[in-house]
């Protein structure tokens, strides 16, 4: 059972991965910042532990009652001391908070997003949909030096997309889109993991990010498409739009009173209950799966739910299709 045990120093399945390391690779713009904060924290911790060791050492090896020297000084300056070790940590903590928060906002609430790639997690694999139509699983190919925005969704339970070399991670919560933006700054292959426990084969729900030069990436997008349909994600969405019967109601000639969809993506929509909502991908997703949730003003709740009818990949394609339409598109406009 433990037959592999003696070989532990040699064990090596991937030629690129070294057998032993003590610091993770740094392959994104974020990684350097996080490492810097981490090292700062380590230095601070080391100083505090050192101070504690000095105090303990003094107490343990000077084990006569100390009512002179240090002891007298300590006893005399009680309020000063207690204030010191409340206020100094407090200020240090405030600084740490500010630095950590700045980086967090940069990463989680970025001012600009990049190339969108849909990532769908399901027990226990990652399915990746490139906008150009290429699909892959447990592998993610991206170009170096360009901001990438992963649009994460889950078919079942909560997963978490984690690339240690990029120092990024986000939980993939079912029922919504989670966006994760980062910029890789180094080519190579980097491991990614599912970090949120998701069931039996949680630990096998991993894969590799391959960061490529932009030219190589463009080339890769065209390569090896055998078995795939050579359609872009939006084109595939258009096929689903017709195959699932969406066009039956949302098409201009339909007798059913349904909202026009051309140009709807990204627009501001008036709702029946008087509110407004921006038709982002999350709203479009809800409209397909939970049509009764936010009904557009002037329409009835007649649309059936597509929950269980189509999977996350198909929804991603549908949304890509809707986003590809502008308001002039005759394909699905009502008038």
């Amino acid at each position, binding site marked *: 059972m433990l037959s592999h045990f003696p070989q532990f120093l040699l064990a090596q399945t991937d030629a690129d991965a070294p057998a032993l390391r003590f610091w993770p690779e740094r392959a994104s713009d974020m990684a350097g910042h996080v490492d810097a904060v981490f090292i700062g924290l380590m230095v601070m*911790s080391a100083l505090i532990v050192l101070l504690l060791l000095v*105090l303990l050492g003094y107490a343990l090896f000077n084990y006569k009652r100390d009512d002179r020297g240090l002891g007298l000084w300590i006893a005399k300056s009680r309020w000063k001391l207690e204030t010191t070790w409340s206020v100094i940590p407090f200020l240090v903590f405030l600084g740490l908070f500010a630095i950590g928060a700045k980086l967090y906002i940069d990463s989680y609430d970025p001012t600009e997003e990049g190339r969108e790639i849909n990532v769908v997690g399901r027990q226990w694999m990652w399915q990746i949909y490139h906008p150009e139509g290429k699909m892959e699983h447990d592998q993610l190919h991206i170009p170096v030096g360009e901001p990438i925005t992963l649009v994460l969704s889950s078919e079942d339970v909560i997963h978490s997309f984690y690339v240690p070399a990029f120092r990024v991670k986000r939980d993939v919560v079912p029922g919504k889109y989670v966006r994760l933006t980062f910029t890789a700054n180094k080519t190579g292959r980097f491991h990614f993991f599912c970090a949120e426990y998701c069931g039996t084969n949680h630990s096998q729900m991993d894969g590799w990010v391959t960061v490529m030069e932009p030219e190589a990436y463009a080339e890769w997008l065209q390569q090896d498409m055998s078995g795939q349909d050579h359609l872009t994600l939006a084109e595939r969405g258009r096929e689903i739009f017709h195959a699932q019967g969406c066009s039956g109601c949302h098409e201009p000639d339909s007798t059913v009173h349904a909202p026009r969809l051309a140009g709807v993506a990204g627009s501001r929509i008036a709702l029946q209950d008087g509110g407004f909502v921006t038709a982002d991908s999350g709203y479009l997703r809800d409209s397909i799966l939970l049509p009764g949730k936010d009904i557009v003003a002037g329409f009835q709740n007649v649309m059936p739910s597509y929950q269980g009818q189509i999977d996350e990949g198909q929804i991603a394609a549908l949304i890509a299709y809707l986003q590809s339409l502008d308001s002039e598109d005759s394909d699905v406009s009502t008038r």
Partner: protein
Amino acid sequence: MDNSANSQHHLVNDPPENVAEEPQENYLNEGKGLMSWLTTTDHKRIGILYLLTITFFFCIAAFAAAIMRADLTTPQGDLVISETYNKLFTVHGVLMIWFFLVPSIPTVLGNFLVPLMLGAKDVAFPRLNLASWYVFVAAGVFTLYAMVAGGVDTGWTFYTPYSSTYSNGHVISMAMGIFIAGFSSIFTGVNFIATIHKMRAPGLTWMRLPLFIWSLYATSIVIVLATPVLAISMFLVMVERLFGVGIFDPALGGDPLLFQHLFWFYSHPAVYIMILPGFGAISEIIATFSRHRVYGYSVVAFSSLSIAVLGFLVWGHHMFVSSQSVYAGLVFSLLSFLVAVPSAIKVFNWSVTMILGRVQFTTPLLYAVGFLGLFTIGGLTGLFLATLAVDVHVHDTYFVVAHFHYIMVGGMVMGYLGGLHLWWPKITGRMYHEWWGRIGATLIFIGFNLTFFPQFILGYLGMPRRYHTYPPEFQFLNVVSTAGATILGLGYLLPFIYLIVSLKKGKKAPDNPWRATGLEWTTSSPPPKHNFEQTPTVNEEAYAYKD
């Protein structure tokens, strides 16, 4: 304290070896037979009942951990299959947290000592106290049933919708066990609150209370106010599984993050339920063996209370990557830094107490020093996790595993074992073997660091937690960790053996073997059924060490 009331017990200071019969009436020999134990309302006997029960649960949970560590020596995990591994870490987490750490100091040492330290005859509601033990046992039965019937693989966090919809395990039974265990905690908490408020001996004002009482008071407040929220989150998971209605299931209109809010509203304060009593025990040990009043008594006392309050404001730091709002993340991060301040104050005040006093190297003191080191590392790494951007990287990795083991095992278990050694003579009337004690404490300290320090590195490297298999580059550190766990296991075995041996072979303990202050040391060892011959009166501060 005035010791003259106990002069009649002076004989036992110089005891004959190996006395078989207890000559004096005490709580241990005042009633014979199993029934006298199962129907007792004596807080001391209930403490012993709890001691036996939680030791039992500790052994099962530790065994689960041993298998997991052995399994993790190879990247492929050759010892057990993934399903088994997942069930093992669930059992380990659930039993360690709700059936060992949460009850450990409060129900064993707290039950035994709170009335003694207050100069009271018993806790405020003795029958409720016994009931809480039965409720605890019932909870244990449900949990053990879930284990035996096939196990649960959700992890102790029961994240939805995995636990409520997808998992195939016996989630309902285990959630029921935790639900019931919650009531046992609440009963104990209510009992301590009423006891500490209303049952103090004449003259025992709040500012004269031992710090152990302060910390248990703070703990009780957290228990009483946090546990019901856990009960409801478990209840909702159970009902959701039973009826397929989805408060937490997005496919049915619910929200999985609601579960996380409810769960962590309990489970973060629960960390303080676990560590605050440890603080109390450490305060007593350090004062006793430094022969000095705890430096800044009032600051240490009130820092326990402020931890109890602030501990409720930080739960969202478990959700930084969960797609909670960025603004909520900022608020929770800031508040998390604040809660570290009172802990920092405590550590410095304890160290300074030792400088001011005259340190005696004894087993409990070794545990206390170990506690200071391990808790400090655990606390500092907590700051790493409160720092938003760093948390994004290390969240749900072994860094977190190492961090909370430094707090809970390095902190709490060291405090519990230290306290158990400090009060062992009072509880059993016997002295344990001092040298074996020191060896045990040292082994545990070394084994612990070997086990968990490599996990910090593993975590920063990016090894996610709850991984049965892992990439081979993580193997070396995992092997080191497993080797450390072996030493740690040996270390835990030692006190288990020599403490039991001391019951038969140990020297008889005098009333106050450590020449400590505190009302519990003024009565005989072991104490009589009603604790004191007459209600003591207190007229001085706590820890009035004169030498």
